[in-house]
Structures are given as structure tokens and as C-alpha cells.
């Protein structure tokens, strides 16, 4: 084993060397005097001078050196360095911000985005090599998030993304609420309907064939087309049926979005629930029956609990997918974080696009992590 370990870790070496090159050659930031004028890109050494720029390469080269002989304690040290780098980025930005005039806007340049990406990859790699648990992996991000938060509150007011947020902080909170409400209600309804459908499919092969046929078909239709196709019938319905109109149903807005989300969510939900219920080890069911459990008891006490982790997997896939689809729904006026993306694209205001896109990604990642953790916990026998 010792021989194998002392081979250099090529991944970390490559990540860090690319990082150093990017840092010194690509623009790290862009500075604009106001919102309208496009920013001037600046490289790291232009922003705070060569001294600071070169100082920042030291930890990266340090990680690369440690990776040359990747003993466990070397990798642990590298982990500390990478977390330090991630936490140092907002501090460096704060330093830059201090040199700017009051009204100017500070944007992140390609070098910083790339570095964020590379360092997060390094973190993932180190987590895997050191076999750290998932919660511990997330805990590593805490100091980083703390550093960003403190810097944003104290010194990073000129950050363009933050400015966009400040202008719309109420709207932003509202958009997140809308987004979550749409996703939550659609996925919730899909869960109820999906479980019923899956149960029906277990009873009848005909329902199964037709059901999966329709749902598969639905899944292939692009979301934007489905939203569009729902416009006409819903508008027509709303014009004919008064109480629907009173509910706020119309061709655009939340109604077509919700319906389309429900449609898309059904397939993964039904498929996972169905497969989960079908694939419980027949020997276990046989044993349960042999012990004299009734059909009902077998289902409620054996089949369902054993199927639960896979059902949860279905909920996870569905929810992550719905978070992305809801962003598209903003196009037909359903609200949510997608609104910022499309507004931003319309006004060529890239920071506004980011204000929509970044939280959507964060939401998706968070939901994914939470539900995965829950499924793991259930699998380890955390039931009861």
C-alpha cells in the first residue's frame, strides 16, 4: 500500500497548477463605475499588486507540493489549505472593494469563477481520498460560508451581485417563496397521485402499460413546449368557467406551470414508487406471509417500509427536476427565481441573471443533499 500511496496525486497537482496559471493570466475582477457601463476587466496583479497576487499562489503551490507525496497527513494539510483558500477569496475581494469609489460595482472575473470551481473540485477530491463522511464534507464549507457572509455584511457592498440583491431584497425573498411553493405543491400532489397510480399499476397490467406510456411520452416533450401547449386550453377554460377564473387560473401564471410540473413529476415518482414496491425481496414477503401476517399487515409493515428509501429517491429526483423546471415557468409568468434570470437576460444585466441562477443551483444542491442524507439514514435502518 505504501508504494501506491507515495505516487503523486495527479488530480490535485493538475487542479492547483491550472489554478495558479488562471489566477495570474485571466481577469480576476471587473470594475464598472455604474450599472449601465460595462466593467473593465482587471487581473489579480493589477487589482492589488504583484505582492498579494503572488502571495495567493503560495497555498496553491503548497497543496500541489503536498500532493506530490499524498500521505494521509499531507492530504489533511492540503484540505486545510483549500478550505483556507476558499475562505480567503472574499477577504481578498474586500481588499479590492476598499480601493474602489463608492458607486462603483465589482464583478467577479473568469479567474475567480474558475478558481472557485477548481478549489471545490479539490475539496471533493480530498473528501473522497480521505474518505470523509458526507456531513463532515458539508461542515468543511461552514467556515467558507461564514467568511463570505461576514465579508458581504462588512465590506463587500460594491459587489455587483450583492447590489442587485439589495435593490430587490423583498422581491428576492418573495421569489424564493414562490419558487418553493410551486415546487412543493407540485411535488406534493405528484407524490399523492403517484403513489395511487403506482398502486393501481400493481393491480392491473393494463393501467401499467397505458400509464407508463403516457408518462414517458409526456417526459419527452420539452418543458417550454408543454407550458406553451397548456396556455390555450387553460385560457379557454378560464374564460368559460367563472370559479376557475376567480381562483386565479388563466392561460399564463401559476396554473399552466403547476400542471406541467405535476405532469413531469409524475413519471419519476410513479416509476420509483412502482419499482420500489415491486422489488422488495420476495423471500421477505414470503417469510412475512409464512408468519401469518395478513395482506394488509404485509403491505404496511413490510413492503412499504422496505420500499421507502427508493420512494424517497424518487422524491429527490422529482424535486431537483422540478426546481429547474420552475425556473423555466417564469417565462409564462409563474414567478419564482427564474424571473430574475429572464429579466437579467432581457436587460443584459448579467449579475441579475446570477441572482436568479445561483440560488436555483444552491436550492437544487441543498434539496439533493438533504434528501440523499434522509435516504441514507432510512437505509441504515433508521425507521421506527
Amino acid at each position, binding site marked *: 500500500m505504501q508504494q501506491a500511496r507515495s505516487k503523486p*496525486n*495527479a*488530480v490535485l497537482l493538475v487542479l492547483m497548477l491550472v489554478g495558479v496559471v488562471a489566477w495570474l493570466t485571466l481577469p480576476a475582477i471587473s470594475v464598472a463605475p455604474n450599472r449601465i457601463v460595462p466593467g473593465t476587466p482587471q487581473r489579480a496583479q493589477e487589482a492589488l499588486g504583484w505582492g498579494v497576487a503572488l502571495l495567493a499562489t503560495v497555498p496553491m503551490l503548497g497543496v500541489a507540493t503536498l500532493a506530490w507525496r499524498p500521505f494521509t497527513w499531507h492530504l489533511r494539510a492540503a484540505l486545510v489549505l483549500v478550505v483556507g483558500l476558499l475562505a480567503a477569496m472574499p477577504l481578498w475581494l474586500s481588499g479590492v472593494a476598499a480601493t474602489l469609489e463608492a458607486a462603483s460595482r465589482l464583478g467577479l472575473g*473568469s479567474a475567480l*469563477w474558475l478558481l472557485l470551481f477548481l478549489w471545490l*473540485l479539490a475539496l*471533493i*477530491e480530498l473528501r*473522497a*481520498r480521505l474518505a470523509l463522511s458526507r456531513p463532515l464534507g458539508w461542515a468543511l464549507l461552514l467556515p467558507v460560508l461564514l467568511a463570505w457572509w461576514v465579508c458581504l455584511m462588512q465590506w463587500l457592498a460594491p459587489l455587483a451581485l450583492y447590489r442587485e440583491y439589495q435593490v430587490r431584497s423583498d422581491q428576492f425573498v418573495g421569489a424564493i417563496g414562490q419558487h418553493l411553493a410551486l415546487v412543493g405543491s407540485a411535488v406534493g400532489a405528484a407524490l399523492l397521485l403517484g403513489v395511487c397510480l403506482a398502486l393501481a399499476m400493481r393491480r392491473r397490467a393494463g393501467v401499467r402499460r397505458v400509464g407508463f406510456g403516457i408518462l414517458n*411520452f409526456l417526459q*419527452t*416533450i*420539452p*418543458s*417550454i*413546449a*408543454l*407550458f*406553451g*401547449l397548456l*396556455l*390555450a386550453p387553460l*385560457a*379557454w377554460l378560464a374564460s368559460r368557467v367563472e370559479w376557475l377564473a376567480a381562483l386565479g387560473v388563466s*392561460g*399564463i401564471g401559476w396554473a399552466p406551470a403547476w400542471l406541467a410540473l405535476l405532469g413531469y413529476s409524475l413519471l419519476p415518482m410513479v416509476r420509483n414508487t412502482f419499482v420500489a414496491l415491486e422489488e422488495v425481496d420476495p423471500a421477505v414477503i414470503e417469510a412475512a406471509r409464512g408468519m401469518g401476517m395478513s395482506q394488509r399487515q404485509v403491505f404496511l409493515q413490510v413492503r412499504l417500509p422496505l420500499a421507502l428509501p427508493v420512494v424517497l429517491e424518487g422524491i429527490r429526483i422529482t424535486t*431537483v427536476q422540478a*426546481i*429547474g*423546471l420552475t*425556473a*423555466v415557468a417564469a*417565462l*409564462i*409568468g409563474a414567478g419564482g427565481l*427564474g424571473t430574475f*434570470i*429572464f429579466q*437579467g*437576460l*432581457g436587460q*443584459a444585466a*448579467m449579475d441579475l*441573471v*446570477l441572482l*436568479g*441562477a*445561483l440560488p*436555483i*443551483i444552491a436550492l*437544487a*444542491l441543498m434539496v*439533493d443533499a438533504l434528501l440523499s442524507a434522509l435516504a441514507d439514514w432510512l437505509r441504515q435502518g433508521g425507521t421506527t
Partner: protein
Amino acid sequence: MSGDVVRQRHSLAGWWVPLAWLALLLALSLGMGLLEGPLRVIEPDSRDVLYVRASFLALLGQHVMVVGLASLLAVLLGVGGAVAVTRPAGRDFLPLVTQLASIGQTFPPVAVLALAVPALGFGTLPIVVALLLYGLLPIVRNTLAGIQGIDPGVHEAARGMGMTPGQILRQVELPLAAPVILAGVRTSVTINVATAAIGATVGASNLGDPIISGIVNGNTAYVLQGALLIGLLAITVDSAFERLQRRVVRQG
């Protein structure tokens, strides 16, 4: 040897489903004018009910071009990358690439598209890049799964028989992984057809155009025309892949 002969006999039968969808798609993009009557019923208040800013055929062509280009690059890079990290030389990168492919799929395609714009500007380029990046993930994941899912005994036997690494890759690993890889390509292309339409909001002209402009102008008829064509395109592509998958699976 006679097995090869049997295999040759699978004819074009069964391809009629995708071909029928394709015919419908082409017919509709050429003869949308014939639908003017029904469209007017839906949108009685507007002066124009037919989207005329560009021919549907041209929009369809653009759409197919962008998706095709991105998908082709994604297949080359995705399969190539996955193959590279399963070779002895690239094995160091395997855990990272595996993790990345699974984390990346959590990213919503719209968000990836939105992030490509600040980096690359408006137009067709950011769409191709975004589609390429997003389309890579299912292909990489499935190629890895396909190659890693091969019975270790088969691999061992191939080496033991004196096949070179190149021969093992071409004659054993890729053919055996083909059904799984193809499933990944199908997922990738399906997502790309849908995401490309959203690209109309960042200045690419394709089948998303009529939808966006219909939504902006409150013209449901436009939306319908775009939606119909995109839906048809998606179904055509999907049914063609289904056919292809059946063929590959039957061979395996």
C-alpha cells in the same frame, strides 16, 4: 458465423414510427399555413396568427444544427473522457469525474444556460457550450457505468487471450457498454432539444423563438406553433433513439 447472417436480416421494419413523426414534423413546418383556420379560433383578437418572422423550416434547421453540434461534441468528449479515466493512465481522475458527473446533474439546465451567457455573451455560442456541458454529464455517467459494469472475468479473459488494450476497448468494452452509452446519449439529446428552445431568450433563433415571442406579445397562436414543432421534434428524436437502442440491445 451463421449468427452474423441472422443479424443482417433485421430490416428497416420498425423504423416507421420515427419516420412517421419526422414526416409529420416536416409537413407541419412546411404547411403551417393550412392551420390558419383553427389557429384563428384560438386567437381571434390578433391580426397575425401565423408566425412569419422566419420560416419554420429555417428555425427547425437551426434547432437541429445547434442540438446536433452540441450533442456530437458531447458524445466525443463524454465518451472520450470516460474512456480516458478508466485507462490506467487516467485512473487517478476517476473518482473526481464520477462525483462531478453525479453532482452536475443536480444543476438545472436553465441555470447552466444562464451561467454560460455572462461567460460567453449572447448568441449561438453560449447555447452550444451550455448544451455541450450539460449534455456531457449523462454521457459520461453512462459510459462509466457501462464500462465498469462489464464482468471482470470478461476483461481478464480478454487480457489473458492476448488482446491489446486498444483491441479490448474497441472489441469488448465499447460494444458491451454500447446500450448503456446510447441510453445516456438519448437522455442528453432529449434534454438538449428542450434546453435549446430556452436558448431563444439569449438571442439564438430556433423553434423557441415563436414561443418566446408569443409569450411576450400575448399571442397564444405563436406559442402553439412553436410548442407543436418542438414537441414533434422531441418525439421524433426520442422514438428514433428508442429504435436504435432496441437494435443495439438485440445484438448484445
